[in-house]
């Protein structure tokens, strides 16, 4: 059985016929070839696959593609305008908020959402906001600094 869905990703509407069990992350990566969204686990813990679904940050490994039918999805590829980065992206670059880079797309998407909810977060609020995203390289310190810098830049 397959289902036709239409999902607007980074501003472009895409119609595709998919298996009902296809995960949104695999729709993005394998059907649309948007490989910036990563898969880091299979139990919804790591957050590497975080994207925006309408107004929410979601783990796209925990959403079926069919559930995204009719929604607007933003992925890491949809943030920058050419080489003009968002304050969060710029913060990650300026503050050395990444090393291997694998968790980074999910971290950035979470941080974008976090700053929308709370444009002026304390260090503790940033750390709490990252509870759903794992990083094994940075010890989180420069990720926290990056988000703090982005908040400052956005004010």
């Amino acid at each position: 059985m397959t289902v036709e869905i239409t999902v607007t990703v980074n501003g472009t509407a895409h119609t595709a016929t998919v298996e009902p069990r296809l995960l949104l992350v695999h729709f993005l990566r394998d059907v649309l070839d948007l490989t910036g969204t990563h898969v880091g686990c299979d139990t919804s813990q790591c957050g590497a696959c975080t994207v925006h679904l309408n107004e929410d940050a979601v783990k796209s490994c925990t959403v079926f593609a069919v559930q995204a039918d009719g929604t607007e999805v933003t992925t890491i590829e949809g943030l920058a305008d050419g080489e003009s980065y968002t304050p969060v992206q710029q913060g990650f670059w300026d503050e050395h908020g990444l090393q291997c880079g694998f968790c980074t797309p999910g971290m950035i998407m979470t941080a974008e959402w976090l700053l929308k909810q709370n444009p002026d977060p304390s260090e503790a609020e940033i750390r709490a906001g990252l509870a759903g995203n794992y990083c094994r390289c940075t010890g989180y310190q420069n990720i926290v600094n990056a988000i703090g810098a982005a908040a400052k830049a956005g004010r």
Partner: protein
Amino acid sequence: MATALFGDSVKRTEDPRLITGRGKYVDDIRLTGMTHMAFVRSPYAHANIRSVDTSAAANAPGVLTVFTGADLQEQLGGLPVAWLLPDLKQPPHPPLAYETVRYVGDAVAVVVADTAYQAADAAELVDVDYEILPAIVNAEAATKDGAPQLHSEAENNIAWDWNISGGDYDEAIKDPDVIVIKQRIVNQRLIPNSMETRGVVADFDSGRGNLTLYTSTQIPHFVKLLYSLVTGHPEQKIRVVAPDVGGGFGSKISIYAEEIVCGIVSKQLGRPVKWIESRSEAYIATTHGRDHITDVEIAGKKDGEIVGIKVDVYANIGAYLSTFAPLVPTWLFGLMLGGVYKMPNVVCRVWGVFTNTTPVDAYRGAGRPEATFLLERMVSRFAQEIGRDPIAVRRKNMLASHKNGRAVTTGVMYDSGDYKGNLNKALEIFDYRGFRSEQRAARRAGKLLGVGISTYIEITGAAPSAVASSLGAQAGLWESSNVRVHPTGKITVYTGSSPHGQGHETTLAQLVSSELGVPMEDVEVLHGDTDQGPFGVGTFGSRSLSVGGAALFNSLGKIKAKAHTLAAHLLESDPKFVTFEGGSFAVEDIPDKSMTFQEVAGAAYGAANLPPGMEPGLEEISFFDPTNFTWPFGTHICVVEIDEDTGQVSLVRYVAVDDVGNVLNPMIVDGMVHGGVAQGIGQALTEQAVYTDDGQLLSGSLMDYALPSADMFPMLEVDRTVTPSPVNPLGVKGAGECGTIAASPAVMNAVIDALAHLGVKHMDMPATSEKVWRAIRDAKETQRAARAAARRS
């Protein structure tokens, strides 16, 4: 972007692609006709394979082929070991098991299908009939008579019985002034958890007979060599590519079964084959770290003088010998038992023991964290026993500073160090005296506050190849570099080291920019593609800059020398009157006689006017083999607060003062220290791989394994002292692992310090809330019983 200098915190050139989703990891590779592979893995820790029925899987939708271990037995040699020890038992390690499975996760068959979903579905349909055998997971118990045996080659499951000693420990403890403190310490098994799991894409070109393997590895060149040795595929017809690699931490320094099997199957099928490890699969199929059961003794006098250490270790190596398994718990462990102390007597014996668990290999620090934990924990324990301050005891026993070689009891030569100077700086930043008075006040107020210190030294920068070879290495451990200056003066560097988060593209371009005075953006740094440069070694053991960077430095030296000669020729001057500064050659005192580096490069390729005997072109290769390892050291101080009611340990402060020699890019080194410390804290407080007695991994997913999250940490306070290394031209030491090595003992010493007044003397990691709560309860119970006994008497 301008030119960069050695010592600048240059922002990373890798980042623009990685912050915009344009990195390319193995799973991002798509090839025409690509198929997908899934592995069928044993659910039992120890079993004989009676039969494998693949018929249902073979008929499942989209399935192209199914192979069992028996099908491929003839084509697959055993997986090799890259480090040997005397009398090492090396049982066969088939990439796919065909007779016996020896751990949960041992692969028995593979299914190849059009899509990954179809392959995973069909893998469920492979019906393996197992005869379940008794299993053993504890390394000490595995050595006892009557324990289940894994391999007929290894009696009592012992792969090796290795020892090292210096001085005469037994004689030293005969002194009546010497007290001996004994402790059993378990250094728990850890699961590395790089955020990118492993993955392979194999692409066999049947026309040319060439195989390309894209693999998430730290050692692409070794994978090429070992793939060739295992399968007989000619080495010149193998290309291994490590694209963007999402972390490794030692778990990607082995040659793995999946790399071999993907290559073989692609060749059989004539189509590209992709395998991407799921996280849960990574928990059982990718190597683990640590897992020592140790009986340790430290001996010293009441005045604080330490006279020796004695260590017996059961090192759990899992079901098979992984590539570097024999090295990690032996040399990388035993050599470090003297630490930064005079330590005149050292005795160390290590049994490597097979068990029905996932193979154990390097994990960040690899042997040094285990040694450092024992030593730093026991030095603080010794101080506690003799009623002296742990810092005073450390200071009393510390080696004097030295700039060029200090022989120590374990038989090695530390390269350079100023251990007391480093300690002093850390204490100054931390304000140790101030803390102790704060702690007394906190205790009066009923708060449990503790401080822990570790003054570590470690071994990095493998290796002087002749030394490594004498210790058992089966390959040279130098590093290579190729510098290709193009006719326009732009530069391509190939390094044999293979980054997976370390930022080589930035730091090596920075080194080129600093040396040649060219802009950063004129330099392209390539790595991890065996077709793009000379044979290399890879990135592990904190070696990339001290060995790989030194190789690059030497290549740049050759480039500069040739360009200098050519420039002098073209400027019609004696070379000794030609200077090279800011990317420009000039004749001294003649202002208008100069040439840019780019002009010289063009002339080298134009070849219209070369000095007699000079070949055209401007390209150089260097292989750098150091004369010694490098020995970073430092002081980490940690403050914890413990909630008496719940046992919850909170980190209050963390000060790290490391000495990694000269620092090329401070921002990157600080980042490595942050990440390293976080992993050491993870071991101290949360992480632990847990097996049931019959070999099921209970902590088998990210749901069950307590990886540290952002809210666990305070802002780390990171600083440095600088003692250049004399063993490489850059004066650098390794910086990738020191944080991990230093952190676990610092944290655990703080936990014990917070509870010391209750009589707590030791606790094994991780210091979970439950464990700490029980320790407090037991200690108070003991104190109450003692008071009651005192009242009665």
